[in-house]
């Protein structure tokens, strides 16, 4: 039986972690994630979970502790944001290449400098090539649901990879919204007991992690790592199917909104997608056929499926809450790559919005949809890449 609550995104993720009851949690605070780990630490202190907490002196150590605990054979979680994720960087690669299914909510926040604590996607986008699976969440409900599903995805015997669950800092992490919790037992049954893969603590079968691999085999190991990523999509869809049976909530590798019969569309991640949907409804009422595609699985990126979903459109704007300076926004680059093999492609533009927590307002969505509408009519675009909501 679902329980209806009004809670923040952080609270929802902490509750998901409590319900899963992991073996080990690496804990280090960073805004806006702090509140999530603080809540989880309270669950540990109050005996509500059996989790062993490891309090560390930095996120680099936190991820290192998680790697050790995961290789030892535990179900391991942590959470971070921004500079914390950046400090974990080298260890992120080790977690994924060692095939350790660590689950980590990432409360998206801008990177310094200048110092900023608010929500944008530059942290997780910076970690997109670390070999982690990335699942993005529009609101607290999705962050909760994705956190639970992440265990089944990362721990799947064909996958065994770490998973980041991304949610927008403050906009979602600190906003109270209505959501539905599953029962503790439902979550535990759904996730199931942790299955060990190659545990170091199995002393009858000694093994070593992290050998030196040089020119003789490194290339082959990376090819094998890529291969695992190609299997993730099907597992994500299978897990989503099971989750729908349990919760009634449907998930895919991406979500489309009024896209099937659309002429123009916005591709956008996380909380801004919700605001955009409301504005799309307004334009639909005026007879303008706008739609939306919101990626959920960003790594691995479902190129073929996204190309298929967008190919009928006249014009598409990919909106990025992060920039790759001197290039396009990271989401744009993925979508452009996805569309490239098509013979007939939509016009494609890139807007950078909402950096450092700058509000993404309905007027911004309206501005973009109007521009898309004009582009579709004239069959040309004005600017390939542009910042919106920026003062001149």
């Amino acid at each position: 039986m679902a329980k209806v609550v009004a809670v923040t995104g952080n609270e929802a993720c902490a509750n998901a972690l409590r319900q899963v009851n992991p073996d080990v949690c690496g804990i280090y605070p960073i805004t806006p994630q702090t509140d999530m780990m603080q809540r989880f630490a309270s669950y540990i202190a109050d005996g509500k979970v059996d989790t062993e907490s490891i309090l560390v002196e930095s996120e680099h150590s936190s991820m290192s502790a998680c790697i050790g605990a995961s290789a030892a054979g535990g179900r391991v979680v942590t959470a971070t944001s921004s500079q914390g994720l950046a400090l974990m960087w080298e260890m992120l690669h080790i977690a994924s290449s060692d095939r350790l299914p660590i689950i980590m909510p990432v409360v998206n926040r801008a990177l310094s400098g200048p110092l900023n604590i608010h929500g944008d996607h530059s942290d997780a986008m910076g970690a997109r090539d670390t070999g982690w699976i990335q699942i993005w969440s529009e609101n607290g409900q999705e962050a909760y649901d994705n956190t639970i599903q992440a265990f089944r995805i990362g721990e799947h015997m064909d996958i065994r990879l770490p998973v980041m669950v991304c949610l927008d800092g403050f906009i979602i992490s600190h906003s109270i919204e209505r959501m539905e919790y599953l029962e503790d037992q439902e979550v535990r049954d759904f996730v199931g007991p942790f299955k060990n893969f190659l545990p170091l603590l199995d002393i009858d079968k000694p093994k070593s992690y992290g050998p030196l691999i040089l020119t003789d085999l490194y290339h082959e190991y990376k090819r094998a790592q890529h291969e695992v990523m190609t299997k993730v999509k099907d597992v994500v869809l299978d897990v989503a199917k099971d989750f729908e049976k349990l919760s009634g909530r449907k998930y895919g590798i991406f979500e489309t909104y009024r896209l099937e019969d659309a002429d123009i569309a916005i591709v956008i991640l996380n909380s801004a997608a919700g605001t955009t949907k409301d504005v799309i409804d307004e334009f639909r009422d005026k007879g303008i056929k706008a739609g939306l595609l919101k990626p959920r699985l960003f790594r691995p990126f479902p190129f073929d499926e996204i190309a298929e979903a967008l190919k009928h459109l006249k014009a598409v704007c990919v909106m990025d809450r992060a920039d790759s300076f001197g290039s396009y926004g990271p989401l744009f680059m993925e979508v452009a790559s996805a569309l490239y093999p098509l013979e007939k492609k939509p016009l494609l533009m890139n807007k950078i919005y909402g950096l450092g927590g700058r509000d993404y307002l309905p007027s911004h969505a309206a501005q973009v949809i109007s521009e898309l509408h004009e582009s579709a009519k004239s069959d040309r675009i004005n600017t390939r890449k542009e910042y919106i909501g920026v003062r001149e």
Partner: protein
Amino acid sequence: MKAKGWKDLPPGAVVLEGGSAARFKTGSWRAFRPVWKEENCIQCLFCWIYCPDMSVPVNDGKRGEFDYNYCKGCGICALECPGKKGQKAIVMVEEGK
């Protein structure tokens, strides 16, 4: 031995057995070899302690002849060897001589 292809590798580059270093023979790296002179040996086993690999086999508390499969010729054993009456029990000799 044929080098493995990417489909044959253990996941995560995990080494799936203990003691596999025994198969990694490094004796060919050597430029100088240690030579054991049993007559000067007091069986202090410093060489066994200091050897970074496993080139000094010990049975019943006494060392035997070097296992050159693992000796890289680092010379630490010869340096540490106290010998007997000023005569080293281990001396380094250039390979090929």
